[in-house]
């Protein structure tokens, strides 16, 4: 279908607008039904987009008929389609969980959620780096509002930090875009990748500054080491469905790093090739170490999980920094696995928190849980997956990354760190599990049935783990093809991206003359 690539953006946008209008804005039940219907449609559309991209190659959607590099283009390649599908499924899980009651704590939860989906899908699908900025702002302003949804002292405090940091990040993003436009004369990602080869020495220095500024911005979004301090408290303070949805937010930073530093400044970029890698290596390793210390030091379950997010970002970027096709493929598999599992963990932690009274999620002796069996099994599966025990996807993804790191230097750094953090996670999560489920005091209250919607949501996200293992063959095949597509510099199909033509145009001329 011609308009398929824009559907994941249009659908949530129209849905959000409709939900603010009378027939739906009056009743929360109608909003819930409508929102879940839209999310299921979005999952179907994403699957369709993924299959189309897989079978027919990269889809280019030119808005307004202006051919690139002049108009705004959406590019749906394998990576974009995969990320959109990931977002849709995670979003459906978070939404189902929210429908069990969390969406009533404040107003406009569902419209905000849809705007968030709009921003995230837009960021994944755009082929233009300024549009990436615009969609970043769309998803950020929705996330500011979602983060504080329900109100409360903790949320306000975390949100002030989050908003200020991201506003500074946006300013730096714009500075970087200004520099890159000044030297390259274009903002279309494919076009930038072609022009970056033909820069003179002065322009190379400026472009390098611009590219590294972008690394700072995306590092802030992804929570890379010196810029990760906002994440644990923010994620621990917000409500569970929002935290689960935010599991995709750090991945957007990683995705943008992949796009900019593999497509634009990849191996064909001449003197600027791989310029981010010397930074990514040590920072990713240190991020893993800091996150692991955070997991051990956390006084509560939600803070531990938030630190697990930091570790997963470090692992992902480490695999990205290896810069080999097999490593990128492993990183993509790990990305799918870690997004679902952190989402599920946030939801499980919330259910545990709600049953422990005043002790909330802290590791102290408290009254016993009302449904220890169901929650215990869910927590046990999630913990096994995070640690990387055999039957689940954590094991497969870890093996894939370890296999990809096969040169001497990489093995020396990657193997011990990845294996040691598994051990540390085992210790930390066993401590969490034993304290929460076994070290209980006080009267055993009667078990209430859990809200079925919440259980379905958790089952959906946790179920992804065995599915990832059972269908490991096709999925790794897909991630390998995606990695190959990222590493090769194949020109877009049916796109009119002529380098010569661009040079004839006035803007191109004025910049090349400089």
């Amino acid at each position, binding site marked *: 279908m011609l308009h398929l690539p824009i559907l994941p953006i249009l659908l949530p946008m129209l849905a959000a607008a409709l939900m603010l209008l009378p027939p739906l804005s009056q009743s929360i039940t109608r909003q819930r039904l409508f929102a879940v219907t839209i999310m299921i449609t979005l999952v179907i559309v994403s699957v369709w987009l993924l299959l189309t991209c897989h079978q027919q190659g990269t889809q280019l959607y030119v808005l307004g008929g202006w051919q690139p590099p002049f108009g705004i283009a959406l590019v749906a390649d394998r990576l974009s389609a995969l990320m959109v599908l990931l977002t849709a499924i995670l979003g459906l899980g978070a939404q189902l969980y929210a429908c069990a009651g969390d969406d009533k704590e404040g107003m406009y939860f569902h419209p905000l959620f849809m705007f968030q989906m709009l921003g995230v899908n837009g960021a994944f699908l755009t082929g233009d780096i*300024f549009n990436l900025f*615009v969609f970043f*702002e769309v998803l950020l*302003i929705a996330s*500011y509002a979602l983060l*504080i949804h329900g109100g*409360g*002292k903790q949320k*306000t*405090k975390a*949100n*002030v*930090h989050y*908003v*200020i940091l991201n*506003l*500074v990040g*946006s*300013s730096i993003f*714009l*500075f970087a*875009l*200004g*520099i890159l*436009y*000044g030297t390259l004369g274009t*903002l279309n990602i494919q076009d930038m990748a072609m022009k970056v080869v033909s820069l003179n020495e002065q322009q190379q220095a400026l472009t390098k500054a611009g590219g590294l500024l972008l690394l700072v911005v995306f590092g802030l979004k992804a929570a890379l080491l010196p810029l990760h301090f906002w994440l644990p408290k923010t994620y621990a303070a917000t409500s569970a469905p929002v935290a689960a949805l935010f599991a995709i937010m750090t991945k957007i930073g990683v995705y943008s790093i992949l796009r900019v530093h593999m497509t634009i400044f990849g191996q064909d970029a001449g003197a600027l090739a791989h310029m981010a890698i010397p930074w990514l290596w040590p920072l990713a390793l240190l991020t893993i170490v800091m996150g692991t210390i955070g997991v051990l030091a956390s006084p509560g379950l939600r803070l531990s999980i938030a630190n697990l997010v930091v570790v997963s970002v470090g692992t992902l970027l480490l695999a990205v920094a290896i810069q080999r096709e097999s490593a990128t493929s492993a990183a993509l598999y790990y990305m799918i696995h870690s997004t679902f599992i952190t989402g599920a963990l946030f939801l499980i932690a919330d259910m545990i928190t709600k049953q422990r009274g005043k002790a909330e999620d802290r590791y102290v002796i408290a009254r016993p849980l009302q449904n220890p069996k169901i929650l215990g099994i869910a927590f046990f599966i999630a913990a096994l997956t995070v640690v990387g025990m055999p039957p689940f996807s954590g094991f497969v993804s870890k093996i894939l990354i370890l296999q990809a790191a096969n040169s001497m230097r990489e093995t020396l750094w990657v193997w011990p760190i990845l294996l040691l953090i598994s051990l540390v996670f085992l210790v930390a999560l066993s401590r969490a599990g034993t304290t929460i489920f076994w070290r209980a005091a006080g009267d055993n209250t009667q078990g209430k049935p859990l809200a079925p919607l919440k259980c379905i949501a958790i089952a959906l996200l946790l179920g992804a783990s065995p599915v990832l293992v059972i269908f490991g063959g096709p999925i790794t095949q897909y991630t390998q093809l995606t990695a190959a597509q990222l590493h090769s510099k194949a020109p877009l199909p049916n796109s009119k991206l002529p380098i010569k033509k661009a040079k004839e145009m*006035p*803007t191109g001329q*004025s910049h090349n003359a*400089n």
Partner: protein
Amino acid sequence: MEVIYAFCVGLLAACGFFLVLRGRTFIVVMGLTLLSYAVNLFLFASGRLTLNGAAVLGQSAQYSDPLPQALVLTAIVIGFAMTAFLVILAMRSRADQGNDHVDGQIPVRPVSPSLLDKRNG
């Protein structure tokens, strides 16, 4: 012209970053505003500075690049909305926390014992 322009952008950005690093929300908001001015001017300059140049071809002997002007317009709108949101959030935070410090509490400065002696004595 380029030198003055670059100096102004640099000064605005430096002031902005300095103010963003302060502790009170209002001052941080001012800093972010200055920073967004610097960003807008910088983006504008990325299309090169030309005098008497229309952005439409054929209107003047020289032409200026229209794309940065469109980018600046977008950046202004977004920056304005974000600042408005931050102002409201800062007021909410002031109401929730009881003070306007970004950390939600005013850090207590350690008082040296000699000063305490003077005050008591």
